[in-house]
């Protein structure tokens, strides 16, 4: 059996987002596990509880855990972790907002409401991203 290839398939939003949903889910696992591993290595194993640890996994931002009992935050206060946080926020928010877009596409039909909801979701996506990135960089 000879290998058959097809050319000219084209890109579109749904193709890109279909791929993105799968890759971003994997990326979120990777970012989460990295955060978890780093937190354990830097003392979380003995200095914190499970709820704080979970917060560190998904959003290892020192500002969010000042009230916790973690003694040493120095390991997380550098630009590497800021990039990790921004990556986590970008993948998580975009993944979730695309999920909302899919719900709208599925159930709204070809009405003006679909266009309005799409616009609302787009602006909500931008707004949440900007606020989250501000929190990460300002902390």
């Amino acid at each position, binding site marked *: *059996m*000879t*290998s*058959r*290839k*097809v*050319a*000219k*398939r*084209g890109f*579109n*939003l*749904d*193709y890109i987002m*279909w*791929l993105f949903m799968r890759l971003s889910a994997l990326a979120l696992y990777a970012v989460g596990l990295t955060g978890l591993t780093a937190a354990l290595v830097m003392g979380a194993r003995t200095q914190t509880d499970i709820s704080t640890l979970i917060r560190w996994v998904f959003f290892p931002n020192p500002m969010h855990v000042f009230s916790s009992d973690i003694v040493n935050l120095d390991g997380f206060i550098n630009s590497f972790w800021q990039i990790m946080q921004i990556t986590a926020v970008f993948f998580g928010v975009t993944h979730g907002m695309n999920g909302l877009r899919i719900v709208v*596409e*599925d*159930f709204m*039909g*070809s009405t003006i409401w679909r266009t309005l909801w799409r616009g609302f979701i787009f602006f909500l996506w931008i707004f949440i991203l900007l606020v989250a990135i501000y929190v990460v960089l300002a902390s």
Partner: protein
Amino acid sequence: MKKITLKLFRYNPEMDKKPYYDTFKLEAEPTDRVLDLMEKVKGYEDGTLSFRRSCAHGVCGSCAMRINGQNMLACKTLVQDLKTNKITVEPILGLPVLKDMIVDMEPFFINYKSVMPYFVNNSPEPSQERLQSIEEQERFDDTAKCILCGACTTSCPSFWSNDEYVGPAAIVNAHRFIFDSRDEGAAERLQILNDQFGVYRCRTIFNCTVACPREIEITKAIGEVKKAIVTGSLD
């Protein structure tokens, strides 16, 4: 003989303001088919009952109906398989009801036609048949079994919510030709399916696979089409 209560969806848009159900009490053998019961009602109880049927042997795909809430062929469903004496028969969902169990299949066939479900080969005709190995034929053997009954498409929530979605049956029939080594229209078909209303509407719910009376692995076939779009490989 078993005593069966057969509840049938009834709707005649020329007479009825809204659909209703008729109930008939019948005696049936466990090996009788639901189609036999409906024929009995039409022949002896109410001749106005309308439903499609043709071959009555699971080949033509005319008698797809919702039996006790699941899409099935009435001619392949035995009374004993339903494991109840109460049988409810309704038309398949997502298509406009014309009368009783008869739905307008036009939207279904518009979607079907949109994916080029026919052989495309513009190469000069060979002097003999276009030969194919057993492996090459096996690649699309499963999807070639489709009888276009519509049980899959009308069990799909994505299709119920938006009939612009081409639906599982259309993708299955596209798959049958996309993976045919003799066909040259794969790129065009993949481009058609690489669309908001193409393969991406499939949410892998698996209703289609459960509903298919030919036991085609529909969700797997849709996955293979998605993979072909991403990788460009038809292996």
